[in-house]
């Protein structure tokens, strides 16, 4: 869906040429979320801004849906790409409704169609349209404002969404909430998302694939679990942190590692659900001496068991494989 080929950006500065982005090539499949991760100044934001041509690449190409974006009018291109920024950038002279309707208006939709679409989006982002439609951005809290920012980016239903540290300015509680909402929405929307972040936890939570940047270069491009299990180099390993095994737990579901079983639960036995992630399983294993935990469905029937061995095998599998080589 999105393919970057040798994307490079050099700036002239007083100290000579500075390479902000250095031959970055990667591909994001349609419907996937790719998080561009790295410390500040690593080139991740510049890479993002070259995709919607807010920054002109020095060399290299960007293909969206197989089309070379060099051949497109930048203004028309940007109207097919949703864009969310950390500073949110809601226009203070427009109401919430008008802000969300900006791109549909640029695309000359009818007023009625725009109104319907805006209401639908506000509702989708947990903002009551009757209450928020006519408010001005200055009357919103940070979390509400960024929800409007996301709604605005989705307004014309673009296939691609670029998000530049979208939740970075929110407090942790709000950030978790809006991340969860976004993940839930993304399950049905299936946008191709490029998401810039400097927060490894956010990346692990949101990404199908993580691209780690190290001073303008792509250091590693892998699924979160693979990245955490096998960092490509020292830089990546130190960036993801020494607790990287614990971070992996979030992305592994009980369903992936349980073995089928049935029968009844012993009284007072602790249970897990197939949709739980391994953070809960690990916590229970740390708190108890049980060797396995029953996994139950919504009605309380046992459908499988998770063993300590299964967890260890899932987490240690790749490490052992590497040791054996």
């Amino acid at each position, binding site marked *: 869906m999105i393919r970057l080929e040798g994307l490079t950006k050099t700036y002239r500065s007083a100290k000579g040429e500075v390479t902000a982005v250095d031959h970055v090539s990667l591909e994001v499949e349609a419907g996937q979320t790719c998080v561009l991760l790295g410390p500040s100044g690593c080139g991740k934001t510049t890479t993002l801004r070259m995709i919607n041509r807010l920054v002109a690449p020095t060399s290299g190409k960007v293909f969206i849906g197989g089309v070379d974006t060099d051949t497109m009018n930048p203004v028309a291109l940007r109207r097919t790409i949703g864009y969310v920024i950390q*500073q949110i950038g809601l226009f*203070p002279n427009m109401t919430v409704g008008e802000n969300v309707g900006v791109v549909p208006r*640029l695309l000359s939709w009818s007023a009625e169609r725009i109104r319907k679409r805006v209401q639908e989006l506000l509702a989708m982002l947990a903002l009551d349209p009757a209450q928020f439609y006519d408010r001005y951005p200055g009357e919103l809290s940070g979390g509400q404002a960024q929800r409007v920012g996301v709604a605005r980016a989705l307004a014309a239903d673009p296939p691609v969404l670029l998000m530049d540290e979208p939740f970075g300015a929110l407090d942790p509680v709000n950030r978790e909430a809006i991340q969860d909402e976004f993940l839930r929405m993304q399950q049905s929307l299936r946008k191709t998302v490029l998401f810039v972040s400097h927060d490894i936890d956010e990346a692990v939570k949101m990404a199908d694939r993580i691209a780690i940047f190290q001073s303008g270069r792509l250091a590693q491009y892998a699924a979160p679990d693979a990245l955490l299990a096998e960092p490509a180099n020292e830089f990546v390993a130190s960036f993801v942190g020494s607790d990287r095994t614990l971070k992996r737990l979030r992305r592994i579901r009980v369903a992936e590692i349980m073995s089928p079983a049935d029968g009844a639960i012993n009284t007072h036995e602790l249970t897990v659900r197939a949709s739980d992630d391994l953070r809960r399983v690990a916590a229970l294993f740390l708190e108890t001496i049980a060797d396995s935990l029953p996994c139950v469905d919504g009605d309380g029937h046992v459908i499988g068991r998770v063993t300590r061995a299964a967890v260890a095998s899932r987490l240690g599998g790749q490490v052992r494989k590497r040791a054996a080589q």
Partner: protein
Amino acid sequence: METLAFILHNLPAIGERTLEHISIVSVAVGIAIVTGVPLGIAITQSQRTADTVLYLGSIVMTIPSIALFGVLIPLLSKFHQGIGYLPAVIAAMLYAQLPIIRNTYTAIRNVDPALRSAAIGMGMSTRQRLARVEIPIALPLIIAGIRVAVVINIGVTAIAAYIGAGGLGTFISRGISQTDIRQLITGALALGLLAITADYSLLWLQRRAARQMRPKGRPPYGAP
């Protein structure tokens, strides 16, 4: 008492002079807006051009108005317009330029770069971005510049009576030459009143433009 009688006796003449005055000021400010606002926006693209334009503007501001009229008379005499309405409008228009250009320039420059970035990123053309985002946001400050220009121009136009442009300055120039205190007071009162009225009307407009962007001044949603 004498003055009051004079005013009551000459109401139609005062009204006519006021209209002349308003006509000169509004034509001059109108031209200054049409030229100054686009110029103020254009110079945001280049720091050097901006410095030059604003410097030239401040030079014009330092020229005493009576001297500017003096210069305009020989120039415009070539077109048989050396005195009267035209030089008055031209001088007033020149004095109106700097406040309008400077405020427009500052206001556009101060638009949050994140808003500009968002507008471009969403696919607005330069014109759309100016018309829908930057100018509306800059509007209160642009109106403040127009306000200053109008007040300055009411004063400049009063002096234009000396070059036969009419307006309320006529009462003052005649009052001086005829040592007629009634005309002097009438002219001064009318001018003061006109300046204050214009200033407050534009202040009201400026606040109205700013209000929706200053949420603290607004009642919360749903409040009675």
